[in-house]
């Protein structure tokens, strides 16, 4: 597995505070982290430790209260919301625990949606979305609604949607959390395959089975990092 020397993600002393009335919850408390290109990293930690908050900041869905975030060398803390939308659209693919497919749309339409926001033409959209679905093994379910798929199929559709714009970074927040062990393993196989194609992947998980398959295991507690584990195979 080639790991790029150039860091893709650089977090420097990140703080994220939530103000709850008079209390301030420090979801992230001075966290620094660097992730290189092509790495398969997992983030583990107890519930409420700040894993999702960290992912949201890396994914340009949220801004830190303090600290600096660089993606591919670019400081995103100073970018406009509009620019961040474009980065989410082109460079980042999200995979959620609850799949988050849009129920009224077919699987094909769901997967094609990110392309809509990068103004790709209809025929090209359908071609790329079909290709992505074929890649995750759902080439025969294009017209189905999300409710007509099993959990594992839904998650594969969500992965197809995440990779349809061919982003370099995939962020998955407990992608196997809602799946049984066998299905979870199939999803992990898919992630390893996508990683071997050169994509940087970060997976938040509670499942040791999942984190064991990642070279780096970043441990978060109370919004801070604990010494990380590097798996050597």
């Amino acid at each position, binding site marked *: 597995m080639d790991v790029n020397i150039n860091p893709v993600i650089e977090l420097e002393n990140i703080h994220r505070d939530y103000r709850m009335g008079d209390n301030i919850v420090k979801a992230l408390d001075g966290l620094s982290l660097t992730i290189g290109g092509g790495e398969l990293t997992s983030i583990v930690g107890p519930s409420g430790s700040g894993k999702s908050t960290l992912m*949201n900041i890396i994914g340009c*869905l949220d801004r830190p209260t303090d600290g600096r975030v660089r993606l591919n060398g670019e400081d995103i803390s100073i970018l406009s919301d*509009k620019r961040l939308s474009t980065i989410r659209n082109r460079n980042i693919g999200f995979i959620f625990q609850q799949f988050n497919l849009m129920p009224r*749309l077919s699987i094909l339409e769901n997967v094609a949606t*990110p392309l809509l926001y*990068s103004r790709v033409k209809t025929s090209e959209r359908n071609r790329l979305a079909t290709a992505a679905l074929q890649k995750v093994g759902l080439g025969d379910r294009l017209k189905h609604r999300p409710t007509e798929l099993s959990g594992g199929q839904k998650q594969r559709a969500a992965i197809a949607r995440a990779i349809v*714009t061919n982003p370099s970074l995939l962020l998955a927040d407990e992608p196997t959390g809602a799946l049984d062990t066998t299905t979870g393993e199939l999803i992990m196989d898919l992630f390893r395959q996508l990683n071997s194609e050169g994509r940087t992947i970060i997976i938040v998980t509670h499942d040791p089975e999942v984190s064991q398959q990642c070279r780096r295991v970043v441990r978060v507690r109370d919004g801070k990092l604990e010494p990380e584990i590097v798996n050597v195979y």
Partner: protein
Amino acid sequence: MFIENIKLSLKNFITNKMRTLLSLLGIMIGVSSVILITTLGNSATSNIKNEIASGGMDLIMIYGGWGNARSQKVFHSGLGEELDDMLDTIIASTPNHQVSALAKSRNKTAFFEVNCISPSYAEVFNIEMPAGRFFSDSDSIDKYPGIILGNKTAQTLFPAGGSVGKPLKLIINQCTYQFTVIGVMKKKDANMGLSFNDVILMDLNYYRSRIAKVEVVNSFFLKAADASVAAQANTDVNEYLQTKTSEKDGFWVDSPSSISEMFNKVTKTLNLVLAAIAGISLLVGGIGIMNIMLVSVTERTREIGIRKALGAQASAIRGQFLTESAVLTIIGGILGVILGTVLGKLVTELMKWSFSPVLSAYVLAIGFSAAIGVFFGLYPAVRASRLDPIQALSYE
């Protein structure tokens, strides 16, 4: 993207048919009442105008002679000719002095209205004479006791037909006069309340020299040079008479053209009322749309979060919801147009009017519906576009 948004809107419309239709009621009622009222207004107007025009738009009527003795002098039997001479817009005139008479033919007796007129009457009203002839200026009126019958009068007095040349007795003010029928008028629709079929015509000069020497004639009928100058002629006559008598209400000038002008004014007022109705119901409809769109935004908070995570810019979300509310109101507008047209067709059919919908009202109605959708959809759309993606994603 626009086409995608329209597809999405239709999809959402189909998913929530009933509730969306209910929210569109305001727009539907507004639009259908606009279409209905404009259709009825236009149909009624063209119907009434047709009715008036069928009798000739070039007619001008003067009723007078109710004033004081001084102003009564204005309405002498030659006033019609005087106006004809003085005003360029008038080309023919006839006095009309009405008396009633008991008419006795050989075997029938009946009361009739006798219109004492001049030979120009035929020109003023475009009288056609299928049998006999009309009065002429060369008739030696002192001696010739000719008389003309309306179509129905002839049928009543001479049921066997062939009335021309027959004698007819008229009893006026208890005196009996002997006449000969010289002609029968062609059947003719009443015009401005003037009937032609159940009357008897007599030459006013004959009446004045032999029956009663009337000085004041209370009505005159004039013919304008052309229908297009009828309104002008109406004004001219009014002004001329005003120079003759200063007495208020001493006379009254009327014409189909002035009535149709009045009708136009009424139509304008009607349009104002219509605009008010439309305005109110569209406002109510717009608020209904705003409400349903706010509900829709709330329900789809999670979808909005997903779209934002996938890279939708605020403007894309705004566009999606604006398109959706415009599509909804256009659907409402189309349904309203259909409803209004069907109702308009029904009512005109019932009234036996010709069905004349107003095209501009249709264009305006649909355009307005779309505008309402954009206007009242703006707030919900902006709200949707400003949602925080993380909060939206965790919305249950």
